[in-house]
C-alpha cells in the first residue's frame, strides 16, 4: 500500500487523526474518572481507569512525536483496554440507570481502537520523514 499520511504537519509530524481522537478520548476518560464524577463514581476502579487512560494518552502523544512504533502500538492497545473496561464496568454497575447507550458507545470506540491497533501492527512502511522547514 502507498504511504497514507495527511499533509497536515504539527510539530514536524504528520497528523494522525485516529490516534489523535483516541488520545482526546483518553484525556476525557481520565478527567471524569479521576474527578470521581464519571459513571463509575468515586470508586477505586475509577482511579485505575484514570491512570490507565492517562498512560495511554501519554503513549499516543510521545509515540506520535518521537516517533516510536512501540509506543504508538501501546497507546492504541491501551485505548482499547480502557474502552473495553469502561464498557463492561458501566454496563454491569449500578452507578447509573442502564439503558445501553454508554455501553454501545464505549464498545464502538473500543472497536475503532482495535482496528487502528491492528492496522498499526500490520504496517510495514518506514517512518514518514520528519518535516523540516
Amino acid at each position: 500500500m502507498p504511504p497514507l499520511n495527511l499533509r497536515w504537519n504539527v510539530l514536524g509530524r504528520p497528523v494522525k487523526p485516529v490516534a489523535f481522537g483516541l488520545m482526546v478520548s483518553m484525556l476525557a476518560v481520565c478527567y471524569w474518572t479521576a474527578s470521581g464524577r464519571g459513571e463509575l463514581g468515586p470508586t477505586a476502579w475509577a482511579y485505575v481507569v484514570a491512570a490507565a487512560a492517562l498512560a495511554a494518552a501519554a503513549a499516543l502523544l510521545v509515540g506520535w512525536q518521537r516517533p516510536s512504533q512501540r509506543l504508538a502500538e501501546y497507546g492504541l492497545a491501551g485505548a482499547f483496554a480502557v474502552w473495553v473496561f469502561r464498557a463492561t464496568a458501566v454496563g454491569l454497575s449500578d452507578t447509573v440507570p442502564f439503558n445501553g447507550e454508554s455501553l454501545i458507545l464505549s464498545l464502538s470506540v473500543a472497536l475503532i481502537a482495535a482496528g487502528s491497533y491492528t492496522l498499526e501492527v500490520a504496517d510495514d512502511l518506514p517512518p514518514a520523514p520528519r518535516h523540516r522547514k
Partner: protein
Amino acid sequence: VNLDPALAGGIGAFLSAAATALLMFAAYQWPAGRNHADDEHHHHHHRHDDDEDG
C-alpha cells in the same frame, strides 16, 4: 445488571485485560498481521523503535 461498582470494575478489568491480550496476540499471529520484515527485527532482538507510521 446492577452490580456493586467495585465488583463491576473487577469484572471489567479482567475482561479488558483478556480482550487486550487476545487483540495483541491476534494482531501479531494471524497471517495478515505483523509483516515479515519486522519479524526479522524481533529475531535479532533489536527491533527499531523509530519506524512508526500510520
